[in-house]
């Protein structure tokens, strides 16, 4: 019948393309986020975690790390990003155990380990809050060109912070791999993290 021949042709055309795409090997082309491999330094820092303990990047080796800069007096973009990451963790299911979300405060004056702990655990128990001396924080933001600035607010004791909104993703070996923005769909993050995690986090 003419109809069925047409339908078969359509199926071939439509399904043929993804098949061809699948045959390409799973490398740079298959990432949905921005590939920053080789363009950003390895994960390295000396900070204090939300339990008040001194930590370094080595403490998180072996896990895919998601590094995000923010601060607790940030009512809109930071909570949105952390809420998205919470959903991403849920979607990853068991694979989420191989990831570590690191929320680095760019407002160490106000963000004590206790304040950070209360904040990050409101989103997901798997998020670790990190703070440190202004110099330590500045060193880390400079390392990833995540500029931030502080502007005086309306009230005398208040100020507002502008900060980089990117999520830097490192593989289990601490190599910078991908950059996500808060605008990127959760599914893109899930897709790429799935690839990174199923590859054991190393290329």
């Amino acid at each position: 019948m003419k109809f069925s021949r047409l339908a078969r042709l359509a199926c071939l055309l439509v399904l043929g393309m993804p098949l061809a795409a699948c045959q390409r090997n799973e490398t740079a082309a298959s990432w949905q986020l921005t590939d920053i491999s080789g363009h950003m330094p390895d994960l390295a820092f000396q900070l204090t975690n939300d339990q008040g303990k001194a930590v370094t990047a080595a403490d998180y080796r072996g896990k895919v790390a998601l590094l995000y800069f923010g601060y607790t007096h940030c009512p809109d973009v930071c909570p949105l990003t952390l809420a998205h990451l919470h959903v991403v963790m849920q979607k990853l299911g068991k694979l989420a155990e191989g990831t570590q979300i690191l929320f680095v405060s760019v407002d160490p004056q106000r963000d004590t380990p206790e304040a950070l702990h209360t904040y990050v655990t409101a989103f997901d128990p798997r998020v670790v809050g990190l703070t440190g001396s202004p110099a330590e924080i500045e060193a880390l933001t400079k390392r990833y060109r995540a500029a931030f600035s502080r502007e005086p607010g309306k009230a005398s004791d208040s100020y507002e912070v502008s900060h980089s909104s990117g999520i830097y993703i490192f593989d289990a070996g601490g190599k910078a791999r991908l950059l996500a923005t808060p605008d990127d769909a959760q599914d893109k993050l899930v897709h790429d993290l799935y690839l990174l995690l199923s590859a054991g986090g190393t290329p």
Partner: protein
Amino acid sequence: MKPGMLLLWLMPLLPPQVQATQADQIKASHAWIRLLPANLPAAGYVTLDNQGSSAATLVSARSAFYASVMLHQSATDTTGSSSMRMLDRLTVPAHGEVSLAPAGYHLMLQEATHPFKPGETIDITLDFADGSHLRVPFSVRPANAPD
């Protein structure tokens, strides 16, 4: 007398050309607050649908449950740097819609009178340029609520 006749009789008694206020024209929906711990500043979101034939301009907002309510806008510049700025006003065009939604316009809510719980409803009053007001119930949602 038929009810319709009564209405006809009363019609001339109504003031001519009753002008709807800006608040009357606005239908508010999807009003919610993302609750943050430790009395940190929180954000309120709402969709404003202007069903009138003239613009409505939001000039301020207030609540008995917060010491301060400010109209803010988050913006991300080309370098990916995110910041907030305060707005004096926000216009909802005639027959148009403006969403206060995450990573854009929002009400910045500071110093709650007492700790809230997800599921509670908090009233926030929106003030419009013509002096009219709209009281909107906002539902309190947990910090990690998806938008």
